[in-house]
């Protein structure tokens, strides 16, 4: 039975702006308004706003909230100052990824988890399953919160001038609660674009109001199309492509977010420790093609005549004018500088293994 497609509180606004709408993660979402290239460049050079209200939010509170979140999360949040934001994953015991997420420390034993839209039901079920032996309260707040991402070097000025929100005291990966239009909202200096920027979590009413103010001020609306090209160029993974139930963060070379030695351990720790010690069979790498042909998700990667992996994401870069890919390949084939090739339709194109960060970021430290 087909599930009914969901919409965000800004759906009518997107349609009125003439956005190209496409189903994504169960939501009818804008892929582009003006064009992916223009929107991508707006974020790199100026500012753009994304409706990311499809993302899920889960509050975890209670006496054992810190202990519990640290147990289901790969990064180490123990003893962190309130206002800190952490990136990491929830894992299955075999090291496969349930989801990648942000954990916001709002207060002592008060955490706000931001999860992928496609995984909301799965994640909430998983979190609740693990929570049975902990004194915590898990609350899925995804229906309450809408979310905007204001991204780009002009992000701080834009939220100040247009929305009267002061983000100047936030450093990258920190969060605070602020009052807006009679309600308490969440403002963090985070994003998924490789640029400086902010994410705002608030009621539908407040988000619609902010969106309209941003549109009136001429801020470029940006669709999920450029969200993907932006994150790709700076080496950020997308759940479903670079992280899956079969792809651990060790395989995805995201080991820096996996704190194997943290107190109390975490679900999936032993599997990750083993993969790290022995070397995982597969490894995520960057590929740079020497030709203009574009590698796409699922295309075969070869070493000589042997298939050694597949492309997880590929684009003709926008800020970097090269044909680039992330690919999951046999570990031995994934050495930096190694010469591989990608099968694109009938032809095979040479590609060099390179670092996954194709474009350099500029965050406010």
């Amino acid at each position, binding site marked *: 039975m087909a599930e009914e497609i969901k919409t965000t509180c800004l759906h009518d606004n997107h349609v009125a702006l003439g956005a*190209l709408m496409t189903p994504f993660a169960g939501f009818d979402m804008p*892929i*582009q308004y003006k*064009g*992916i*290239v223009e929107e991508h460049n707006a974020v790199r050079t100026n500012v753009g706003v994304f409706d990311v209200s499809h993302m899920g939010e889960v509050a975890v509170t209670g006496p054992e909230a810190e202990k519990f979140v640290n147990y289901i999360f790969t990064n180490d949040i123990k003893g962190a100052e309130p206002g800190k934001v952490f990136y990491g994953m929830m894992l299955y015991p075999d090291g496969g990824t349930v989801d990648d997420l942000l954990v916001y420390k709002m207060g002592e034993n008060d955490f706000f988890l931001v999860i992928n839209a496609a995984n909301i039901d799965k994640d909430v079920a998983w979190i609740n399953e693990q929570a049975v032996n902990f004194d915590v309260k898990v609350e899925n707040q995804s229906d309450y919160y809408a979310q905007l991402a204001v991204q780009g070097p002009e992000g701080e000025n834009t939220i100040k001038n247009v929305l009267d929100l002061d983000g100047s005291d936030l450093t990258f990966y920190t969060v605070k609660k602020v009052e807006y239009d009679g309600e308490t909202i969440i403002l963090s200096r985070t994003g998924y674009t490789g640029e400086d920027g902010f994410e705002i979590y608030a009621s539908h009413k407040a988000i619609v109001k902010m969106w309209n103010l941003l549109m009136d001020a001429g801020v470029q609306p940006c669709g999920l*199309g450029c969200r*993907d*090209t932006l994150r790709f160029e700076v080496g950020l993974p997308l759940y479903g492509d670079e992280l899956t139930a079969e792809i651990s963060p060790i395989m995805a070379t995201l080991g820096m977010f996996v704190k194997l030695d943290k107190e109390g351990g975490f679900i999936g720790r032993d599997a990750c420790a083993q993969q790290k010690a022995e070397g995982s069979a597969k490894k995520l790498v960057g590929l740079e093609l020497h030709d*203009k*042909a*574009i590698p*796409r998700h699922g295309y075969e990667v070869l070493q000589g005549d042997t298939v050694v992996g597949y492309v997880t994401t590929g*684009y*003709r870069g*926008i800020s970097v004018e090269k*044909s680039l890919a992330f690919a999951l390949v046999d570990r031995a084939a994934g050495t930096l500088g190694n010469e591989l090739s990608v099968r*694109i*339709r009938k032809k095979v194109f040479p590609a060099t293994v390179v670092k996954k960060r194709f474009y350099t970021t500029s965050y406010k430290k």
Partner: protein
Amino acid sequence: MSKIIDGLYYSESHEYVRVDGEFGYIGITDYAQHELGNVVYVDMPEVDDEVAAGEEFGAVESVKAASDLMSPVSGTVVEVNEALEDEPGLINKDAFENWIIKVELSDKGELDDLMDAEAYKAMIGE
């Protein structure tokens, strides 16, 4: 509203053929370029390659996805539009001006299986 030019032949997969004597210029329609968005790469065959009606001869790629190019007619490629190698976005500027391949037609009778401007207009609902 998309541009449609009278006198061209149109396929259901949004390619056009502009016939000039024994030759046909094949490209994608204005409607197709609009649906694709920014074209960033055109995968073209080589001169002397054979193309067959209804079969794939290359691809046109937007930022987001690759779309196969299906030849509306059969014949031999006599020229490819090399300008598209350096500037694939020309297709977005003018899809009818910026044809993709020029083919020596092997069976002009195949043109009868294609749509005229009016029928194509009706198909895309404009």
